[in-house]
């Protein structure tokens, strides 16, 4: 498959780009929500519009009422979300959540997916325990209790956790904390007794929860996939979330770069446009190259994932690591090249720097994924 959009994808990109640049732009969304002290983390009306355009169901199978498309298509949406810093539950819900639920029972699917597709529900992944991503270590205890399970423990960095209709929770049902196997995935409804949320605003104005589970009881129907065999589904959800966040990062990097090159063409110092200074030109050209390469890595990984290739896993980590590094460079150069005004809240470039940091951290940062590339390569 060639590494560029086919006709359908190009059409989707056209539509999505215009829509998000309009409705999802920084001023009407990110700044409005932030300055209004929003505590939800997104605008429900915009989420509904996503649904009206069919975007919420991209990764939901046609049988389940979605479009049954792939990661390339989801990435098209995410890139524009990134470019406009649009606060949206798309990644946690329509990408990570929908991928996990795609492997659930018909009953569970029926309970949540229609709401997702309709833009009325939000899902959140409750996975990390602690400040760094360590999906191989799950300590949250899920004991058998009657017909179901009783969950005790805590989860951190649960984006959209406080407003989600269901939490996708990885719990330990067998083995010790660091065993790869022995975990089970649950869809825990928001109103389950014993759930406590400590919702905090993050640097990028998104809202994440520290969630406590105090003997939370769920019935057996809440299990996604196999009991003790949740790792397989979790890995699929992780791959989706990782390549999704990588795609969103390329949008963030591209948006920051566009702002920066525009500034280089208008700001004057020492009687010249600062874009005339060769030192800045070379840095901009290097940055362009890095962003292009990151984009290529992302689309390659998306295609491999969509094709079910055995190389997808490696390439997803390559893409997340590369996109993180390239976008980090883009926002650092962006702020520096903007000079003093880049430090002000009034200019948008700093918002890109903030979003980059939060996205890079989501489901494994560049160091995590570089290490994973080494491990998967056998060294």
């Amino acid at each position, binding site marked *: 498959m060639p590494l560029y959009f086919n006709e359908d994808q190009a059409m989707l990109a056209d539509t999505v780009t215009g829509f998000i640049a309009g409705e999802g732009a920084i001023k009407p969304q990110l700044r409005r929500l932030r300055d209004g002290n929003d505590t939800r983390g997104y605008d429900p009306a915009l989420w509904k519009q996503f649904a009206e355009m069919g975007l919420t169901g991209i990764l939901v199978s046609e049988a389940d009422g979605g479009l049954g498309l792939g990661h390339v298509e989801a990435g098209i949406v995410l890139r524009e979300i990134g470019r406009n810093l649009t606060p949206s539950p798309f990644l946690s819900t329509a990408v990570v959540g929908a991928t996990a639920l795609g492997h659930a029972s018909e009953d569970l699917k029926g309970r949540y997916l229609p709401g997702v597709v309709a833009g009325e529900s939000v899902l959140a992944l409750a996975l990390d325990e602690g400040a760094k991503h360590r999906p191989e270590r799950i300590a949250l205890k899920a004991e058998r209790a009657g017909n179901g399970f009783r969950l005790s423990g805590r989860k951190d960095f649960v984006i959209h956790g406080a407003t989600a209709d269901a939490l996708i929770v990885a719990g330990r049902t067998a083995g010790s904390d660091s065993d790869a196997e022995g975990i089970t995935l649950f869809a825990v409804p928001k109103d389950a007794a014993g759930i406590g949320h400590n919702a905090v605003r993050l640097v*990028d104005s998104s809202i994440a929860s520290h969630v406590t589970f105090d003997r939370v009881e769920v019935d057996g129907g809440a299990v996604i996939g196999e009991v003790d065999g949740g790792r397989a589904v979790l890995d699929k959800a992780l791959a989706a979330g990782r390549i999704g966040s990588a795609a969103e990062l390329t949008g963030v990097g591209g948006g920051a770069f566009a702002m920066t090159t525009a500034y280089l063409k208008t700001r004057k110092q020492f009687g010249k446009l600062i874009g005339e200074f060769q030192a800045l030109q070379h840095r901009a050209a290097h940055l362009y190259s890095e962003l292009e390469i990151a984009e290529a890595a992302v689309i390659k990984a998306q295609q491999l994932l969509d094709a079910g290739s055995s190389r997808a896993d490696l390439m997803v980590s390559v893409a997340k690591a590369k996109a993180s590094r390239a976008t980090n460079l883009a926002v650092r150069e962006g702020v520096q090249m903007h000079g*003093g005004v880049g430090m002000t809240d009034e200019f948008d470039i700093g918002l890109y720097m903030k979003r980059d*940091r939060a996205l890079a951290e989501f489901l494994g940062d560049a160091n995590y994924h570089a*290490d994973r590339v080494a491990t998967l390569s056998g060294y």
Partner: protein
Amino acid sequence: MTDLEAFRADIRAWLDANCPPEMRRPIEDEDDICWGGRAFAFKSEAQKIWLERCVAHGYTVPDWPKAYGGAGMDPAQAKIWREEMARIGARPPLSSFGIWMLGPALLKFGTEEQKVHYLNQIARGEIRWCQGYSEPGSGSDLVSLQTFGEDKGDHWIVNGQKIWTSYADKADWIFCLVRTDKANKYQGISFLLFDMTTPGVSTRPIKLISGASPFCETFFDNVVVPKAQIVGELNRGWDVAKYLLGHEREMISGAGGSERLNAIGAVVQRNGGIDNPVLRAELAQFDVDALAFAAMGEKFLDEIKVGKAHPAQPNMMKYSGTELNKQRHELLMAAGGSTALEWESAETRGGTPARSWLRTKANSIEGGTSEVMLNVIAKRILDLPGA
């Protein structure tokens, strides 16, 4: 006992008797600092007493002449004063841009009348000063400033806008670069002093990406400045400004070199551990750079003392120190993970890691950008052509 030993004994005795115990504790918050000024609200009685006692002996500015409010100490005596202050951990009785910046400039460029008047005010902490240099259109290219003072015989009418004026909203007076000759870029700027309550002066705080800040935008709308309030000659304010900028850059490079750039791997290991080998490698490489830079800082200060440092070396220190500090906070954010992302939580004391990280991004912009530093190194140290 030599004279200096006797001097040290006197100082020590005076400090023992006069520095309140509360003033011997480390400064923890911004408002532990005594900035002085008309509107200053002392945080404690001890802070007020400590200032008054020091003012009475000229100890707020120990190396200024007595006639200007100082204690007239020579360099050896001033060093003893600093050492004895450090020995008991005494807080500075007064901190201000007046002492650090305007004072030295007045001592060099002011008239006798100006010195007596303004330096004494500064020494007593009566007037808090701010600095009006940068403008929206003139960042690195400071000399392109546009704020204009129209000559009206015995006064100027000043119009224009400054930016990055630290504490402008709290300051009583401003020392300000104003264009007084539009035809002459470098020799058309004057260094003026005026009261911030003069009609037509207004300020607006600047919110940074890291949150609230002491910086302001400052606007001048037909502000009347009497002719007597110029420092140095008409249209030669750039000389005064350059002299001050040198001071500022040395302060920043000194600060960068000494305190902030310690190694961090061991700290990260203690706070939560390093479970990613790539992060560990990055920390190790950073620690190599940081420990090497600490040696550089030490060498730089040693060489400065004996005049061995290249006069442009502060530019190198500022460049390397600020770039390293930015990298340091990038690593701290990576090590801190999702907790470090929190913006308002109690656990992070209101987002300290993230706000500090974002604040460091200004290090390589304020006080001369990294690009300007590199230009200066290329020109003045490497003597590259056309630089």
